[in-house]
């Protein structure tokens, strides 16, 4: 069995937790996020005939990336960033967030979930902004409400970890 530790990071209100809620196996309540600062779920992904279990560490993000407990990032095989398309500041924080995770977990595969795609009409990002993001990030546009893009995000994460593993071995 192949397991991967995946950390989910993103500021408060980006819909990080509700994004995965419907797609994962949960054992712990959301209370852990506010108490311990992390909540762990499981997401099995079937990929080209092989199966990977993603162990998702949903890291509590509050108002700033400084609130994240970095020891939870240690040993992560991949990072799933979550930003809110309707709130520009959640995207502006991404470079600092990435630096933080790189310091703690090293250069691991990253996927950015640009969430709340169902609210396109209230989108705060210009086309130019999105293009700039595309250059640096592997972006999946997601919606916690409709479920769009969520499975795709997990698949990309899973694939990323498998590729990284092959590259390293």
């Amino acid at each position, binding site marked *: 069995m192949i397991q991967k530790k995946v950390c989910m990071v993103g500021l408060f209100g980006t819909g990080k937790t509700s994004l995965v809620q419907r797609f994962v196996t949960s*054992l712990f309540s959301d209370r852990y996020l506010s108490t*311990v600062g992390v909540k762990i779920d*499981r997401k099995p992904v079937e990929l080209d005939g092989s199966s990977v279990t993603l162990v998702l560490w949903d890291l509590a993000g509050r108002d700033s990336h400084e609130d994240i407990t970095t020891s939870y990032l*240690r040993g992560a095989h991949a990072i799933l960033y979550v930003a809110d398309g309707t709130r520009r500041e959640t995207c502006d924080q991404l470079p600092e967030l990435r630096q933080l995770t790189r310091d703690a977990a090293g250069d691991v595969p990253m996927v950015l979930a640009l969430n709340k795609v169902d609210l396109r009409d209230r989108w705060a990002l210009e086309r130019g902004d999105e293009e700039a993001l595309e250059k640096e990030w592997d972006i999946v546009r997601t919606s916690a409400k409709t479920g769009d893009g969520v499975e795709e995000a997990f698949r990309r994460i899973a694939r990323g970890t498998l590729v990284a593993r092959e590259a390293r071995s």
Partner: protein
Amino acid sequence: MSDRAPWDSPAVDDLAELRELILGAERRRLQELERRLDAAGLTREELAELLPEAIVLRAGRDRQLARALAPTVENAIGESVRRNPRQIATAIFPVLGPAIRKAIADALAGLVASINSALEHSVSPRGLRWRLEAWRTGVPFAQIVLKHALVYRVEQVFLIHAETGLLLSHAWTPELPPSDPDLVSGMLTAIRDFVADSFARDGDAGGLRRFTVGELTVMVEQGPQAVLAAVVRGQAPDALLGKLQDILERVHLEYADALAGFEGDTTPFEPARPLLEECLATVISTDREKGRVRPAAWLPWVAAAVLVLALLAGLRFRSEQRWQRAVELLESEPGIVLTQAERSGGRWSFAGLRDPLAPEPAALLASVGADTSEVSATWEPYLSLRPELVLARARRSLSLPSTVSLEQVDDTLRLRGSAPLGWLAATARQASLPAGVAALDLRRVEPIVPPELASMEREIEGRRVLFDIGVAAVRPEERAEVAEVAATFARLRARAAEIGVRAGLELVGRTDPSGADSTNRALSRSRAEAVLAALVARGVARDAIHLTAAGTTDPLAAADPAERARINRSVSFVVSLGWDGTGREPAR
């Protein structure tokens, strides 16, 4: 030389060929040597450049280099330590300190655990009960302990990858299939991180090693690359920690490569499961006692009980002592005869005889600390003839003045000191004597004469009635003197009678030294009788007067012989104050 040139050319070639044939091998060797010499000279700098790469290259290929270098490195380290140990010590200190600390901490934890279990098994009531059972049934104690052995069950064992928190392997008791061990493994890792971040600020303190949730205890053993966690229901024995350490070490040894290269594939760790299951197998015991009392809980009770017993024993001892002292005191007290002394249920009861003058028994008992409200006593009154009591009784019935002391001589009470004349007279007349006394001896008591009586006494005794030579008749001019004496004595007598004292008057007749003694004696008597007649004529009672014919035997003193003769032709007066039946005169 020019004619030799034509065959020279081909000859050169031949020569070269010949040289090649003969010296070729040597020449090539020379060239090789030359090249090597050049190379050696060139590469001192180049070598410096190439050496690190060369080492990396070779180390990657096989372990030859390491093997070759090992003795040199060992020697170098040995030399360095010999020359300056401080340097090496400083270098390895950061590694050594934590390692030693951890080793000591683990050793101490093991020691404490074994002391705990030894204590638990040897001094606990349960331990004693087991010993009794072993003695009764003849079964070895160890087996008894095993039979009752404390119950715990290791329900799950997790082998967790230290860095990622991913579950490497997992073992559980068959009857309790766990849910989502991979999530538990992750969360456990997260919580340990959380605890370490929150509380253990000094870095590697080993992390959260043991925590308890109700009946469950989670014991965690931390290794460099993997963590072993056991979920135990019931009393997790400390010995389990040692077992976990042992297994974790074996995992690190046997799966060193798999742990180092772990990328999420848990397949290589599947063979580790039997190792984890060993922990599960250690468990058992079904007859767990309900509400088992831990030493920490029963010790205070035992201590309290011992304290209470000690207190009770102390109180009992004190009460016993008090009782002894009370009985001794009552028995030794004059005026109290103890005929019965009993003690039951904290109540004391006494019976006996008591002289009314003996001290109050309740007060005596109170003086030894007895609770007099818990004492009942029956005392029959009696009169004690113990000297103390007799004296006390006498002192009371005689209204003894403080200036008089008492002593008992056989059945006579002897009084000493000084006392008012009136009291002496009254005491002498007293018909009833105190119980236990047959007679009073007042002779050693100095009477204190009332000042009024004393002054009248002095006045009477200062007078004398003078006579002419050879004459016994009272001279007319002496009659006034006689009248004074008669009046004063009448007053004195009446005053003395008031205090019960009988006053007497002695008339002492004298003569001057001339003449015969017998004549003088008769003359002195006649003179005293003459004064007596004069006094009686003035109303003085005859029976109060006593006559003494001194003659010349007890003359009054004077320096001049004529004067002495004159004053001795006289009658003088002596007052007596009789206060006891003996008629003894008071001292003058």
